[in-house]
């Protein structure tokens, strides 16, 4: 048998060799029975709906913590569909025609899904998948089957699917899951995001023809860094990858040792590797994976979980528990970073055409001083005895930084006059995530202590690509030369003023980017905890001079594709 190689979009780093497990949506069998009274059947439907709402609420809460509010909003839409009167009517009329509830739900949701799917506009037609997901959930509940789509995985395998529904991706958290490959999807699809969070390799957008050739047990080599999937690999290919794998696992052993140590380049330049986290639970995980600090503590969850903004005491307790979990390591607390795309109920948002260009982050805080002050007071008071830093998100002008610092000064004065104890030496920095901040970096550096590059938003704003829009997902290129040039400009400007620069965007944990960033002089890398050991190991593989050389070569390239290709080569040199 000859090997076949499919190229897709590299969605999550790593190499894995294993059998395929083809995920087909759970086939639900409708029982054969006589219908009860319409009333009885409807009662079962209503109770299934209640159960579905409960499941969706739980999924939403867990997704909110793991993947953020954008993904969580999908489950709100699903909840609306569960209680939709059209679905109810369609089910009821089928029951009146003598169907049993299982058939009625299955037929009704399929009919509605097909109706949505037949629409001309793709945007509308995409809701077909959601309707089908909801119908499937209801039927599954009616059949008394628990919510486990992929947990039937009994041995380690690579999950192969056409696409994975939001519900599927949530149930993917099995210890047997080696990696993912899907025929559909882009860098921002659910499975891509989840894979990166779990630290599992993934390739998406493989195309349908790949799927036709893979069946359960097909031997696969999944290379999430290069974006390739090899079916039935030849002995030579297998050997090449096996040796890469072996070296990787030897590396892993070394990594576990190096990970407990500070990150240094091959010639001894010290850089810091920290973690991006959202609560105290993940702080523990961060320490286990070798985080030297927290480069980004997201505080949004405190605000989004409640129906009222968290008060000073609640916030202090939350921050303290993170500081405690991190011991004496530095923690950068980012002030509230929300917007119209994920509005909490208590903040009055107008519906915005462009929430990413709208009223968000520091703009909200500067308009709502009480909200901002409560958070700043809580951070300063909680930081007594710890190493906390404050960071403002989405700064796009010097005025904004000054205005935020003025509020901070007021807060300090108020704490002084109230005689309350607070941390006096808290460095203040900004997130550099707008092209405007990059262009003004020299001036901004004069008025704060550090920068942290938020590359997800910086990429989005620079390339004018909405990273939640799947149709333009492939244009979202974090290694775009324009983005790399902006990063260089930021680092140079800060260093000129003697300030340090970190990065808390996904780029900081991306293997292909790490050597470039080292070469550009980045001082701190902050990433998902699971990416830390590999990043520290990789940093140790490059001398400062080699990294500088790589960065220079990369900056002379003019397309993201050339840069990607070049960096795959650079990594292979080190990994072999």
């Amino acid at each position, binding site marked *: 048998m000859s090997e076949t190689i499919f190229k897709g979009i590299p969605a999550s780093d790593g190499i894995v060799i294993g059998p395929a497990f083809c995920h087909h949506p759970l086939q639900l069998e409708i029982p054969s029975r006589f219908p009860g009274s319409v009333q009885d059947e409807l009662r079962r439907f209503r109770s299934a709906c209640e159960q579905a709402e409960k499941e969706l609420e739980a999924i939403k809460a867990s997704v909110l913590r793991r993947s953020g509010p954008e993904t969580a909003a999908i489950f709100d839409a699903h909840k609306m569909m569960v209680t939709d009167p*059209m*679905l109810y009517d369609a089910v009821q009329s089928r029951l009146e025609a003598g169907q049993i509830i299982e058939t009625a739900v299955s037929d009704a949701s399929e009919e509605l899904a097909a109706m949505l799917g037949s629409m001309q506009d793709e945007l509308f037609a995409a*809701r077909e998948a959601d309707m089908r997901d909801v119908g499937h959930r209801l039927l599954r509940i009616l059949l008394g089957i628990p919510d486990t789509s992929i947990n039937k995985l009994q041995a380690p395998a690579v999950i192969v699917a056409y696409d994975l529904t939001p519900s599927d991706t949530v149930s993917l958290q099995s210890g047997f899951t080696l990696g993912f490959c899907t025929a559909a999807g882009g860098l921002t699809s659910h499975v891509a995001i989840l894979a990166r969070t779990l630290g599992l390799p993934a390739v998406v957008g493989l195309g349908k023809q790949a799927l036709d050739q893979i069946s359960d047990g097909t031997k696969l080599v999944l290379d999430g860094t290069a974006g390739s999937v090899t079916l039935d690999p030849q002995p030579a290919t297998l050997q090449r990858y096996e040796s890469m794998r072996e070296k990787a696992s030897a590396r892993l052993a070394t990594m576990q040792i190096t990970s407990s140590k500070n990150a240094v380049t091959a010639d001894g330049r010290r850089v810091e590797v920290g973690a991006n986290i959202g609560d105290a639970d993940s702080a523990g995980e961060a320490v286990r994976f070798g985080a030297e600090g927290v480069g980004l503590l997201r505080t949004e969850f405190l605000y989004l979980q409640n129906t009222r903004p968290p008060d000073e005491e609640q916030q202090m307790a939350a921050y303290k528990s993170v500081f405690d979990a991190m011991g004496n390591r530095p923690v950068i607390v980012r002030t509230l970073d929300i917007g119209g795309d994920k509005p909490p109920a208590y903040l009055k*948002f107008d519906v915005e055409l462009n929430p990413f260009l709208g009223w968000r982050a520091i703009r909200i805080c500067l308009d709502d001083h009480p909200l901002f002050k409560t958070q700043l007071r809580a951070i300063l008071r909680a930081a007594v005895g710890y190493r906390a830093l404050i960071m403002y998100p989405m700064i796009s002008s010097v005025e904004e930084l000054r205005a935020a610092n003025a509020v901070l000064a007021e807060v300090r004065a108020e704490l002084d006059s109230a005689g309350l104890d607070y941390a006096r030496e808290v460095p203040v920095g900004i997130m550099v995530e707008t092209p405007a901040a990059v262009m003004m970096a020299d001036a901004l550096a004069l008025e704060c202590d550090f920068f942290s590059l938020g590359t997800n938003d910086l990429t989005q704003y620079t390339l004018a690509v909405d990273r939640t829009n799947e149709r333009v997902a492939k244009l979202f290129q974090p290694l775009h030369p324009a983005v790399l040039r902006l990063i260089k400009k930021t680092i140079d400007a800060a260093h000129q003023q003697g300030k340090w620069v970190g990065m808390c965007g996904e780029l900081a944990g991306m293997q292909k980017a790490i050597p470039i960033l080292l070469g550009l002089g980045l001082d701190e890398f902050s990433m998902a905890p699971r990416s830390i050991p590999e990043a520290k190991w990789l940093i140790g593989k490059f001398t400062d001079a080699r990294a500088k050389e790589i960065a220079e070569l990369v900056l002379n390239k003019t397309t993201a594709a050339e840069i990607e290709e070049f960096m795959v080569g650079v990594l292979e040199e080190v990994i072999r």
Partner: protein
Amino acid sequence: MQTTSIVVHNKVGLHARPAALFVQAAMAHQSKITVTNGEKSGNAKSIIGILALGVQQNDKITINADGTDEVEALTALTKLVENNFGEPV
């Protein structure tokens, strides 16, 4: 029974957030509310029904309300559409 016609200026039409807001506003009323777009009609309290109308930017929709709070319902929904769901036009 009250009826009115209005043009939807919103960029994505009645989809995603605007659709959800529209349905939520309809659900806040007792009246039976129907929306018509061309030859298609749907229940204003159904997200599926609203999505199925495929209302796109600059489509003219007709809203029909029947019930005790039909005037209020129509006013609320018209206002929502007129204000472009709070988005700048």
